[in-house]
């Protein structure tokens, strides 16, 4: 009985200690989300409320303009996840192979973009991707002679992969670090080459981590606003920038809400998949 009482008093103190944050989140987070969900099923702008409707969703799914934008968002999300995996893998792998100091340096460099101001980082990319920026020159004839890689898929993709790289590297590092080094040694002892060992042992054991990292990056990429807004501009519209435009500039709150709701569903789905996947991988539980 005493155990029960302790558990109950612990439960009570937990509620007490979490009451302020639950109150804050309830009023300041859940209520706004409920407003978005409610508005997405209403037509008009609030003053001319005409009851429940699926018109916005029908419009989004059938209208070519929205259709293209949804596709663009998904393609950008997938491409960002893929590029982040390609760029992140060598970094995460190097972190497992090098000394402590080098590892800390790589870690700090990976975290830096995420922690520097979004506008400042985008500004740097505007200089690099613009007409006479180095990246635009690197791309040669693929870049627009006047605007370079700005306002293009490639430009937005590079800047997005850059900022979301930490999520990929952290996930991969967690998984790679847990691979038993004796497995690699055994493979080498049995006569496999280093390349064979890498693909047969390291890479195949970390594949779950690659997919998990990609889901995480995808989830973050589809909901990113500032980077596509500044790098993509009006020529490269994705869902978050459209939500902003519809809500703030056009005052079309129903469409904005419906788009935001779709965005949340996509982000939650890939996060949910990520969580399930990560639980199943060795080393995944730690990340």
């Amino acid at each position, binding site marked *: 009985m005493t155990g029960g009482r302790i558990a109950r008093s612990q439960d009570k103190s937990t509620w007490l200690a979490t009451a302020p944050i639950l109150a804050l989140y309830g009023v300041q987070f859940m209520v706004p989300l409920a407003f978005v969900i409610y508005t997405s099923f209403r037509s008009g702008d609030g003053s001319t409320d005409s009851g429940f409707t699926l018109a916005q969703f029908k419009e989004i799914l059938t209208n070519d303009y929205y259709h293209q934008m949804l596709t663009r968002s998904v393609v950008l999300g997938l491409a960002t996840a893929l590029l982040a995996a390609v760029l992140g893998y060598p970094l995460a792998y190097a972190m497992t192979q090098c000394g402590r100091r080098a590892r800390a340096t790589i870690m700090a460099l990976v*975290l830096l*973009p995420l*922690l520097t101001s979004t506008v400042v980082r985008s500004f740097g990319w505007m200089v690099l991707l613009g007409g006479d920026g180095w990246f635009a020159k690197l791309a040669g004839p693929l870049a627009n002679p006047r605007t370079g890689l700005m306002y293009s898929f490639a430009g937005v993709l590079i800047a997005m992969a850059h900022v979301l790289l*930490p999520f990929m590297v952290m996930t991969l590092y*967690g998984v790679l670090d847990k691979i038993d080094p004796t497995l690699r040694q055994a493979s080498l002892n049995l006569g496999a080459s280093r390349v064979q060992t890498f693909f047969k042992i390291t890479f195949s054991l970390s594949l779950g981590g690659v997919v998990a990292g990609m889901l995480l990056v995808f989830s973050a990429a589809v909901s990113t606003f500032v980077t596509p807004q500044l790098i993509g501009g009006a020529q490269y519209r994705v869902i*978050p920038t459209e939500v902003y435009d519809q809500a703030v500039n056009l005052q079309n709150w129903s469409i904005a809400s419906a788009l935001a709701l779709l965005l949340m569903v996509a982000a939650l789905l890939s996060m949910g998949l990520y969580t399930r996947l990560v639980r199943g991988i060795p080393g995944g539980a730690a990340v």
Partner: protein
Amino acid sequence: MRIDKLAGRTTVVLLCLFLVAPLAVVVATAFTTTPYLTFPPRGLTLKWFDVVLSDPSWRAALLNSALLAAGSTLIACLVGTPAAIALTKRGVAASNLIGLLIVAPIVVPSIMYTLGLMLAYSKISFTPQPWTLAVAISVLATPYFMRTLMAGLESIDPSLEIAAMNLGASRLRAWRDVVLPAVIRSFVSGALLAFIISFDELIVPLFLARPTDELLPVRIYDMIAYDIDPSIAAVSAILIVVTCVLVVISARDTKRAVEPKS
């Protein structure tokens, strides 16, 4: 050196350059002597830093943003600290659900959250005040603060606290003398992270506060979208340097907050 090792090293160095490239470019362009923005910069001058630091409107924006971020960080610490302590204790039935709710602002697209705030405010015809901005932004910063703090709390051996209590220390005293010193570091790192996130927040003020409030990220955003000159590079360079210092101070602890957690 073996050829594959050399190739591996070159790849890593190139990737590291890629990571710092946009930041390095911003810092470099801030020193240009040309009246327009150019990279690589021409000449070397501190003129643009002087322009920025002596301009009252830049200073006001900086001060506004710092105050807003301080307010938001304070709220995050006030609501986040007791919750983090309670949730770190084992065997609490409610903690899974609450824990999930607490990370929700990281998972839910912040554009949806901000849109919701805008809709809610307009429903009750409320004009956002500076303090409501701080409250709104604190919701986005709190999860990061809590995760940093909780990672610190989890790394403490719970038997130490129990030992102190067995030796006659009260619950509060055991916590103050045993747990607190060990978590101060992660508390400070979490608060720094919350401050950085709050300071940089653009979406919330973009939806709720324009055009009256002058906040630094909003001002930079407007200027790079419409008219770029090297003074923005100077402001940005200052922000980058400050962030770098903070990252070096708290990298070990903030890493845990950024780390994805299932």
